[in-house]
């Protein structure tokens, strides 16, 4: 409150201290923030999960599911049928099975016009059946979805999940307790099918218009409350992995995640998070390391913003959803069979059926270091705050220093009254820097990035003329644009570089913008913000113009590598190495290059079809900030304060 009342603030002792020691403070805050975040993985610093919503009544009734025998029949029938359609979906078989169960069965067609390349059209068809709840008037619904994978698919097959879905449907149909319609959905083309189905259900287009034509659908079942996506790869299940990360890092309500884990443990099905069992170590360090790796696995998936299962597309529509991926049992021990999995599903849907209100009680923002531990938003935000605080402090210190410089420059004879002095200093500061060139430069940087954001389709078209493939065209286009962008400082410096203060102001703007970007992103996708902060905060802070030639070159090299495009390449290569650790370097580099080429196209296409934010955020928000710092680097440092700079 001192700031409110004391006009003399900013020249006090505290600020003096801040100006003098801000670098040390920033380093301290950064290390503190990172350590704080890392320590959160330890069980002493996070909390055990619990049910917030009492209406779920998880697992209170005894499971009654007993259709496991029919599931086996369905499976063998489906495998025979699937063999006839190596690339398609056995629609007629699916429709017939659903009809036999006396369910309202519908199909849904959709068309994708591929936004890049030659603009090819792809069609798909989803099959879904609605079990009309006897106890309600179709105001609410639950979804059980399975992605259909033809035998030619590169992903592991999901025939067992369709078998169990049909068996469960058969069982559910005979029950009289349903108060919410249950929709059984079989989708084609992985996430595309689900996205199209959801868009058609809500009659909206999420991505760019004209890309995914969601088509029309006949039957609906009211507001969807929750969805379970099932991907079982085998009849004998070793463990079920619960996947939660959705599009743009959105997560389902923690109650639903807990519910799945609870039902699995009730039926004795081994359940994991991130395919990692909860470790049981006596050594606190190994225990922490285990949790931390799980936590970082989640952070990495969430940061990408790409859903790791079909559940991820439901979240946008306010539908809580998770994927249950079942892996084949290998080795000794008793596997979970259709019987157990069916009971898990029965328990899940009966609990969801109990819900009176939509999921709202528990957390929507959390991180999981283990299947049964969670870190709430209140716990994980402060570390990021600490990390980002460095940027703000640096900006503040620069501002104060600037003010000080300007007051110091005042001739000493101006001592008559305080009022005059402050007036003069005000005049001075207005004289010394003008916001116009700074503003113009910032605007220019942002405009360039907007151009880049809207260019992929044009680049693609241009590439086609020159006979380039889409990824090459995009890379070439962006590379050229980046080169052009690096020239921007030449023009910008001429404008800003007039006064020392303008440069300083420019640096402050860049720092503050980075802090704002990171904190705003953290509201949407914490993991993305965290990873970016860990990388960009120290580098951003280092981007201070120096006199030292070598240092300047090093700075520039570092900053070039932090260009979003380069970063993408580095991350993809790193990821490839991690995924295939056994491959030789040659094979790896080839795979890596292929992945790199695809990655950019995927990012663009995802943003067009699913409205994934990663590409827009990187190009329209992160990139201009990158340019700002790049311009800062090309500013010559203060000649007057050479000694002080070197001290820093």
């Amino acid at each position, binding site marked *: 409150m001192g700031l409110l009342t004391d006009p003399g603030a900013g020249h006090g002792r505290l600020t003096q201290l801040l100006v003098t020691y801000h670098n040390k403070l920033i380093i301290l805050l950064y290390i503190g923030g990172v350590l704080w975040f890392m320590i959160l993985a330890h069980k002493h610093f996070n909390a055990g999960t619990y049910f917030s919503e009492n209406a779920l009544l998880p697992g209170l009734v005894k499971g009654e599911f007993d259709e496991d025998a029919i599931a086996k029949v369905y499976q063998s029938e489906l495998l025979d049928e699937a063999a006839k359609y190596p690339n398609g979906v056995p629609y007629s078989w699916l429709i017939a099975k659903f009809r036999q169960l006396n369910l309202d069965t519908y199909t849904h067609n959709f068309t994708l016009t591929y936004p890049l390349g030659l603009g090819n059209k792809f069609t798909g068809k989803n099959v879904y059946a609605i079990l009309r709840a006897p106890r309600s008037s179709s105001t609410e619904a639950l979804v059980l979805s399975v992605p259909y994978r033809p035998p030619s698919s590169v992903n592991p097959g999901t025939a067992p999940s369709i078998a169990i879905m049909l068996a469960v449907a058969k069982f559910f149909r005979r029950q009289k307790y349903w108060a919410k319609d249950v929709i059984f959905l079989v989708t084609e083309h992985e996430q595309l099918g689900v996205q199209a189905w959801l868009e058609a259900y*809500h009659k909206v287009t999420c991505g760019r218009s004209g890309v995914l034509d969601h088509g029309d659908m006949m039957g609906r079942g009211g507001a969807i409350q929750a969805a379970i996506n099932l991907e079982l790869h085998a009849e004998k299940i070793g463990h079920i992995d619960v996947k939660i990360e959705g599009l743009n890092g959105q997560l389902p309500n923690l109650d639903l995640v807990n519910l799945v884990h609870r039902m699995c443990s009730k039926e004795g099905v081994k359940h994991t998070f991130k395919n990692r069992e909860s470790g049981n170590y006596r050594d606190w360090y190994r225990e922490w390391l285990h949790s931390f790796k799980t936590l970082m696995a989640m952070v990495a998936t969430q940061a990408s913003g790409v859903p790791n299962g079909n559940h991820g597309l439901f979240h946008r529509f306010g539908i809580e959803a998770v994927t249950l991926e079942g892996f084949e049992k290998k080795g000794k021990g008793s596997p979970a069979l259709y019987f157990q999995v069916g009971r898990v599903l029965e328990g899940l849907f009966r609990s969801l059926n109990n819900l009176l209100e939509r999921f709202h009680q528990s957390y929507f923002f959390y991180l999981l270091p283990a299947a049964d531990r969670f870190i709430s938003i209140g716990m994980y935000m402060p570390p990021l705050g600490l990390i980002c605080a460095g940027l703000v402090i640096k900006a503040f210190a620069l501002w104060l220093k600037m003010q000080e410089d300007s007051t110091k420059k005042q001739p000493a004879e101006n001592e008559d009254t305080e009022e005059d002095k402050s007036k003069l200093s005000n005049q001075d500061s207005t004289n010394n820097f003008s916001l116009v060139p700074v503003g113009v430069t910032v605007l220019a940087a942002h405009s360039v990035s907007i151009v880049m954001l809207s260019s992929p389709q044009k680049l693609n078209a241009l590439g086609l003329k020159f006979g380039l493939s889409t990824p090459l065209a995009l890379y070439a286009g962006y590379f050229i644009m980046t080169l052009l962008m690096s020239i921007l400082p030449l023009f910008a410096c001429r404008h800003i570089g007039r006064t020392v203060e303008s440069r300083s102001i420019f640096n402050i703007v860049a720092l503050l913008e980075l802090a704002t970007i990171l904190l705003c992103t953290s509201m949407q996708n914490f993991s993305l913000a965290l990873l970016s902060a860990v990388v960009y905060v120290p580098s951003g802070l280092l981007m201070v113009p120096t006199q030292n030639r070598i240092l300047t070159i090093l700075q520039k090299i570092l900053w070039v590598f932090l260009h979003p495009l380069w970063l993408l390449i580095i991350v993809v290569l790193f990821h490839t190495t991690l995924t295939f650790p056994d491959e030789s370097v040659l094979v790896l580099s080839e795979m890596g290059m292929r992945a790199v080429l695809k990655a950019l196209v995927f990012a663009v296409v995802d943003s067009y079809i699913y409205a994934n934010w990663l590409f827009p955020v990187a190009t329209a928000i992160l990139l201009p900030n990158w340019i700002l710092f790049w311009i800062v680097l090309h500013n010559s440092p203060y000649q007057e304060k050479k000694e002080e700079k070197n001290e820093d």
Partner: protein
Amino acid sequence: MRGALYASVFISFIHLFFSVTCVPQNDYFDEELLLKPLPSGHVFAYFQFTTIWDLESEATFYQHYHLFPRALGEIVGWYNVQELHISLTAGLWRYEHWGYPVHDAAPGAEMWAWFKEDTKNVDTTWRELAGALSGLLCASLNSIDASNSLNPEFTFQLPGRVSSRAVNSSYLRYATLPREIVCTENLTPWKKLLPCDAKKGLSTLLNAGHIYNTNYHSLGIHLRPVCRDSNCSQISVELRQTLSLVYDMVILGIGNQDFSIKKLFGIGLSGACPLATMSNIYIDTTLNETGASFKLSPPPPAVIASSRGGYESKFAVYDVKALGIDGMFNIAAFYSSPRVHGVNLPPVLYANRYIIGYGQEYGGIVTKVYNGLWKPLDVVYLENIPWFIPLYLHTLKIVANGKEIKPLLKRYIPGKARTRPYYLEVALRLPARSTTEIYIEFDYVFLKWQEYPPDANHGFYIGAAIITALLPVGRNYTGLPQDGSTISSSFNASRDGYLVQIRTETLIITMPTPDFSMPYNVICLACTVVALAFGPLHNMTTKRLRLKDEGGQNHLISLLKSAFKRSSEKKEKRS
């Protein structure tokens, strides 16, 4: 002594009984049950209890009661009601699979009434009528008032009118409570309105334990004036108490489609109501002609072939009075072979309604109306939107088969927060064999915090829209003709048009709902902020700020120094 008293009471009772029956009867009671296996594998059971009360003049209405329920008659007489329709429904009638019901009813409670033209204050009378009926039926009809009632101009014109004079819809009120949950507490008072209560007759079949295990359940009370002759010189009052049930044989049956009275109602029939003039059970055997057939046991005494609007149907008729039931009586239908559910043949006209959009910025309501007829069909569409969902009329778009069409007529009265719902009635001509989408946008608004229900995150209900049409064909049609009162009057009743009033789904929308633990947090936060800001603000506003040469370099220390100085000066002064 006591025995003599009993005897005299008994004799006087007998006397009374005979004296009542000796009075020239001016009312009749009929009880009927229609069982209809639906193509989807469900069984539709429809009970209708009809009381017709012939009166000499309007002045003697609702004075001396015989079979007509006095509890209802008094309310109706007191509130000047001419025509009254109430339905309490659980579940949704699936037109697409089940065809048309005898009485259309929207999920939840639905009520509409015409008042006599000498009624002074219709809104007040309506509210009071709803309150009185709420007590009678144990339903929350008392929450009906002007803020959720409409007076539609076209939709309710057609049924139940005795006079052909121009009607003034200002005497009509219509309201729905889509959230109303219907259960046995509504059934019991409803049964008490019957002359035989639930002690004898078809009403003994209505056991809450069984009839609430259905997919659809609709109680109805329909009161209307009817003409006694073709000139309409004399008017009678007709009261129909209806109960529609749809049983799902997949849930009920153990692997087969067989149904029987005992299976459906848990009890056999012990006989007819002695007060009833007619006590019939009809079983629709039309489906026997196609697909798997069933045999009735005992075999029906009579079979009626009915031709209606170009469609033939067959009914097995059991006259309960003539059966001479001794003990319990059961009718069972056995299928000779398991039924296969073929391709569904939807009725001529049906509709779906759903909410579009996501998030809580803006949304839309789409009503899809399917017209399967070979020729264009005129329909009236009545939208029923509560006041808390602001509609935008300019966004109303009606698209038939991809082409936008203009409505024939449009009536719109915008809603007003807390006082009036949105009223939109549109007359349309649906093209032949078309799917028409009626699309309108709305906004999500915040309500006052007391206006949220206890389970705020459940969502808010939007009542069903009504689509009224006169169908030229009688396919899937089971409704009674305008001039008929009993189910038997619907046999061979070919008319120019068959009135359907399709009710769409009720919708549930999630309004922006505050976190209801928030007020506490807000109070805490607000108090803290006020406490922190008050001091400095008070200082700033009451003290004058003057810049002063500090002399010393250090702010804090110099301040302290000056304070010390001042205190020491004071001390000096004191000393």
